[in-house]
């Protein structure tokens, strides 16, 4: 079956430092990868959408300079949170899909704590 793995599952970083999180698709080709942040109130914020052969599209309030994303092949994507601060805390979810309008498979997320 199709699975998405995210690692690390949890990470703690000091304020002002950066951390990288990874997303691995298994059992299908991830032509599209979306990165979300789930707030403590459990709402989803779309950070950016990466589609193969297209430029990565960032949502309002999120920038490449702050959340650089790499999507080098159909099974892997990574995102870095640069200069993390308290407001960057949350659960970062990776959602990958193969074809248009098919199911999005989510990883269990990377929980970022900033101290």
């Amino acid at each position: 079956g199709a699975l998405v793995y995210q690692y690390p599952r949890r990470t703690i970083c000091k304020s002002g430092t950066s951390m990288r999180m990874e997303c691995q698709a298994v059992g299908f080709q991830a032509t599209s990868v979306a990165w979300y942040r789930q707030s403590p109130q459990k709402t989803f914020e779309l950070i950016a959408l990466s589609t193969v052969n297209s430029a990565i599209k960032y949502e309002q309030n999120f920038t490449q300079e702050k959340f650089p994303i790499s999507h080098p092949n159909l099974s892997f994507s990574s995102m870095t949170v640069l200069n993390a601060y308290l407001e960057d805390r949350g659960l970062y979810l990776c959602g990958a899909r193969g074809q248009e309008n098919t199911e999005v498979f989510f990883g269990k997320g990377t929980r970022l704590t900033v101290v």
Partner: protein
Amino acid sequence: GDSVTQTEGLVTLTEGLPVMLNCTYQSTYSPFLFWYVQHLNEAPKLLLKSFTDNKRPEHQGFHATLHKSSSSFHLQKSSAQLSDSALYYCALSYSNNRIFFGDGTQLVVKP
């Protein structure tokens, strides 16, 4: 703009009673609608997806009907089970792969 609205943040009910979680949407085009379920410390998982031919999707006793006239895709189940307690998200998607999620509804089923 495009958006998904889930009016209930928390729904608490007794085991055996019917479930209905509301979802309405605003969209520029004809979207696909989804329901995702997230159990504690688990990844969100697809529960239902709307069809283009007016079929009613069903899974694990849950069903939802897309009503374009009222822009709704409410989630229903005839009899709640304790294991149904989870977060439920309604989502909207276009062919450009962007997905908009509602704020989620926490369902708590009590014995």
